[in-house]
């Protein structure tokens, strides 16, 4: 029986890519207002978990279930998940040549509004809304006339993800290694953007390899993923312990447990 308050409830989730099993039984509960960090060594399945939650077709879920606001998330198309308030900040944001950032973002914004029975906004109103969101990521309006992620630096792409998140105001944001490849200034901008968007009724899952980002985005819970399973969960101090000790001791413990 799901707790009434849970926003996301993952139970025994297993997923494969091709014939390779990557997630081998994930349990995770996220409540409104919480920030969860999912950490782990390379290849542990962190990004796969993020992609599976967003519905990437490259992965096949073979067991388990995921409830989002009490609904079967795995039964929903990726766009339905997005419309229901799930946002994935991509590790590798995709380029869409020839389509301006403004056009793209307004289309996304309107699709989500439509799905919620709200009226679409025209480009003038949307520009007003953008102005405020751009401030959040410390950007001028020029970025909006550039084609989506085309020719963006790695840092710009990540910042653009946070801008999109700010505009789309998700209930559940999943940040997939948003800190990778960011210099310290960009990291600060990204983190303060995320923090500014925290609300009592939304939640964030931060997928990261390093503790660094968690200095800025302080998690309520930290989970360590090894070999497709969560091998340890704890408070924010667990992240610091990992920073000090690395992942090896947990990997060894995980192997010993098999």
């Amino acid at each position, binding site marked *: 029986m799901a707790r009434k308050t849970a926003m996301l409830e993952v139970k025994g989730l297993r997923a494969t890519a091709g014939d390779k099993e990557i997630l081998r039984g994930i349990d995770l509960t996220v409540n409104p207002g919480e920030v969860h960090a999912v950490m782990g060594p390379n290849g542990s399945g962190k990004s796969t978990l993020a992609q599976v939650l967003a519905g990437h077709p490259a992965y096949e879920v073979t067991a388990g279930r995921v409830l989002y606001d009490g609904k079967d998330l795995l039964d929903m198309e990726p*766009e339905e998940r997005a419309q229901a308030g799930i946002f994935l900040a991509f590790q590798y944001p995709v380029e869409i040549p020839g389509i301006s950032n403004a056009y793209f973002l307004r289309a996304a914004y309107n699709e989500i509004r439509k799905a919620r029975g709200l009226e679409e906004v025209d480009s003038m109103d949307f520009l007003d809304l953008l102005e405020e969101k751009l401030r959040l990521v410390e950007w001028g309006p020029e970025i909006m006339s550039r084609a989506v992620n085309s020719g963006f630096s790695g840092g710009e792409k990540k910042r653009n993800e946070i801008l999109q998140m700010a505009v789309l105001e998700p209930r559940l944001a999943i940040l997939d290694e948003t800190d990778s490849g960011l210099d310290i200034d960009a990291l600060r901008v990204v983190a303060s953007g995320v923090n500014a968007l925290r609300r009592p009724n939304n939640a964030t899952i931060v997928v990261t390899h390093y503790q660094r980002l968690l200095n800025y985005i302080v998690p309520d819970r930290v989970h360590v993923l090894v070999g497709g399973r969560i091998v340890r969960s704890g408070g924010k101090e667990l992240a610091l312990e990992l920073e000090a000790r690395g992942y090896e001791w947990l990997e060894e413990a995980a192997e010993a447990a098999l």
Partner: protein
Amino acid sequence: MSSSVESLVNRDYKYGFVTDIEADTAPKGLNEDIIRLISAKKGEPEWLLEWRLKAFRGWSKMTEPHSWPNIKYCPIDYQNLRYYSAPKTAKPLGSLDEADPRLLETYNKLGIPLTEQKLLAGVAVDAIFDSVSVGTTYKAKLAEAGVIFCSFGEAVREHPELVRKYLGSVVPASDNFFAALNAAVFSDGSFVFVPRGVQCPMELSTYFRINAAETGQFERTLIIAEEGASVSYLEGCTAPKRDENQLHAAVVELVALDNATIKYSTVQNWYAGDEEGRGGIYNFVTKRGKCAGANSKISWTQVETGSAITWKYPSVILQGDNSVGEFYSVAVVNGRQQADTGTKMIHLGKNTRSTIVSKGISAGQGQNSYRGLVKVLPRAAGARNYTQCDSMLIGNRCGAHTFPYIDVQNSTAAVEHEASTSKIGEDQIFYLKQRGLNTENAISMIVNGFCKEVFKELPMEFAVEAQKLLGVSLEGSVG
């Protein structure tokens, strides 16, 4: 990973209907008597009949091109086609009110507003139903400016000296198999003459439509812009559903004199055939412009989404010094469509410039070929060409092919060619879906972005239409 990319569900052709009008048709087959009949029906002068007959005799000795184009089709039985068909109502009309209401209804279904809407929009329409023009609007306003815009047949009657001077001057009757066929049997078409120094006050447009069964369509368009004149011409078409393959062998000739500009835009959406590739139009078209004068400019923009087979190479002969030729193209193949399309830029004059931007999109089991020739002749000092040729693949069963020919005979010429091939990936689609767009909107956005450089060349009204058409054409290309 790409399994979803491969599933194809083709939507029924939206414009597949046939208007029930008794056609005044010629018997099947092609011979000199049929040509005499066509010419007589149209009340043509002797010289034009002779021109047709000469073309026919030339055509009789030619063979259908099968070896060089990258398209496959069964040889056409030319004796099993009809070469003349006109709606019964096709006597000259004083006004639209006199037109057959069913014809008007057909146009309305196609969204061709021959009526007030179009007048308000400021576009003159010369609509062709089968072979005969049934209505021409806004003539008075054009006449005031000195612009002649009428059916080809009318031009032959009213302005024979102009027709005789320019007919075949860019695409000779002997040019190629389909051009020769057209010259022999051409039914009707449009004629535009913009006199010296006149900027045509509105966009001119013609909608083509094939209707009677097994009736080949052989339109002929001739556009002349005199010294310092300019004109923008739009051509768009949709065809009703048919089981038999239908041949469309049109010829378009453009002539630009000194300092003249002609912009010719096409949105082509002929019926493409069913999922098995049955039916659908064979669009074998010869389009060519001649920048006859110095500083003249001819620009072709085409959005090709329809037809079972497309075979066309809108070209520019850059004869005048400093003349400019442009070709902007989007060609989409889905289902079992085949397209072999591109352009020829023939640099004859000094400092002539040409730009080619070709965007080919292949989905389903479609085969898309770009074929382009850039030829710089010895006298064309300082000639420049820039070619950009991009292909996009959707799914694993389609093909994109590029056949660029470059022939430079002047050492001062500069010719650039850039080419790219990309594939719409699951990742691109997933990214947009994750932002709330459904698959079709995602594809449409990616493809529209890919085609942006071409769409921005289209007149505003056409650009919107073209974007919608692209969306419709690719519906179901990704499951």
